[in-house]
């Protein structure tokens, strides 16, 4: 693609960095900004820059947050002794969308997979174990990918907390057949959150 302005070209290149955005789409976005008032672009860049600069990760659950503790953790109406263990932020958003869950979360940042170079140390497992001990958590609900690595992670955490008085359940993991939680539709996800089952039942399948 040839441009008469390197300013334009640079902007297009920046947009094209996004996953799923090619040069053509990037150009459309930039041209769209050009058509509008200058202030709109300024506001846009400032919002993005501020988001990146000021965003925090909740010290309790690793969720994104404006403060040291996220709004979910800070909400006293939510059941603080119930933790739903998820892989990433997108899972939190998917589950929140169902409006069927009123406990808290713990974001692991992935699942154990030595093949991908991810051991327990790379994940927020130790912080979870400490959190359960400190907060005397009553129930842990696993909402991890229904695959071998998800299993490994559940067993591992289960082993780590076996001496604590914490119930462990998992949501019916057939729901997302081979995919991520984000693909499960809200209704099935919501239902499976209510019909969760003890881990050992799931394991012996």
């Amino acid at each position: 693609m040839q441009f008469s302005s390197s300013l334009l070209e640079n902007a297009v290149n920046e947009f094209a960095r996004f996953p799923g955005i090619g040069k053509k789409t990037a150009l459309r976005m930039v041209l769209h900004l050009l058509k509008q008032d200058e202030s709109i672009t300024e506001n846009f860049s400032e919002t993005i820059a501020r988001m990146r600069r000021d965003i925090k990760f909740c010290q309790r659950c690793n969720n994104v947050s404006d403060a040291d503790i996220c709004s979910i953790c800070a909400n006293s109406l939510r059941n603080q002794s119930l933790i739903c263990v998820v892989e990433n932020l997108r899972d939190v958003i998917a589950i929140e969308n169902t409006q069927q869950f009123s406990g808290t979360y713990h974001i692991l940042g992935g699942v154990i997979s030595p093949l991908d170079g991810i051991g327990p140390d790379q994940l927020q497992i130790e912080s979870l174990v400490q959190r359960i001990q400190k907060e005397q958590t009553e129930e842990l609900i696993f909402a991890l990918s229904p695959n071998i690595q998800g299993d490994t992670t559940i067993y591992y955490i289960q082993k780590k907390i076996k001496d604590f008085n914490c119930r462990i359940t998992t949501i019916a993991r057939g729901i997302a057949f081979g995919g991520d939680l984000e693909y499960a539709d809200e209704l099935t996800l919501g239902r499976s959150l209510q019909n969760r089952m003890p881990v050992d039942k799931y394991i012996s399948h």
Partner: protein
Amino acid sequence: MFACRHIALTQFRNYRFESFNFNENIIGIYGQNGSGKTNLLDAIYYLCFTKSSFNRPDAQSVKDGFAGFRIDGRFEKNKEEHKLVCILRENNRKEFLADEESYTRFSEHIGKYPCVMIAPDDVSLITEGSEERRKFIDTLLSQLQHDYLEQLIAYNKILQQRNSFLKFAAERNNYDEQLLEILNSQLLEKGNFIYERRQQFLNEFLPQVLAQYISIADKDDKLSLEYESQLNNNTFEELLQQNLQRDLYLQRTGTGIHKDDMVIELKQTTFKNIASQGQRKSLLFAFKLAAFETLKTIKGFAPILLLDDVFEKLDEKRMENLLQYVCVQSGAQVFITDTHKDRLQQSFIKIGKGYNLIGL
């Protein structure tokens, strides 16, 4: 009757676009070397197994200079027509559709459209390492028992994870014992399942191979076949424990069902070391025909038989017996390739049943 009635190949290997009809149950395919006979059989195999019978990446089956391929097939099963489509997209993503529904997991398809292929390279089953023999058993068992394939896939994934774990451990000179225990228990569960299934199955299957061999070779050569597994003498759990230091040192898992084998002996000597070419071929056919019979019995209908270049493999009398069996007794739809049109035609005329002859 279970049969493939039609196939259309688009940008598959040497075919730009070509379609074939098979309205009979005996199909002869003739053509010179390199004319595409094996490719046509492999296309049928693709539709039965969602992949090639050769251990090659899908992308290599795309016709040179093109992007993506497509195989369309029409099958008859229990008097019903089924459409199977295998598509490799331009970006090398594979799709597989059965009656217009795409599978989320290809493994779901395995066993629904059973087929047995006999090809020249298959003697590797007898002459090469244990991997070939495991592949043979696994391919057969996967078609017979759906949960077997699932457990096997899971076993292999856990094995890879455990091997990576061992590599990590060696690099860091230190490892997470609890994680190893978890990986071990996951591996054990799948491994024991597979071991039991293989043992049960081979107990019945190997004697059938022997019987087939005796009938093909026309004499008892003092052949013995045995399932060999480290798990025959120790539990998998003990094996993993005993081998831990060695596994850590070698950075891979040295025990388990991924080391299983079938021991083939002739007069108490390793078969491949003393068997003649003819004996090898007889044994290969014995394995394949026993697989065919087992599938037929359990499925309740005969799998499709794909015979590639078998004329080159047996003497005239054996060939005649074999053709009589596959074309008449077996009850299967059979595809046979040959470079000689006349030889094929003569044989078919002798059999006296309807046939299609396709020249490439």
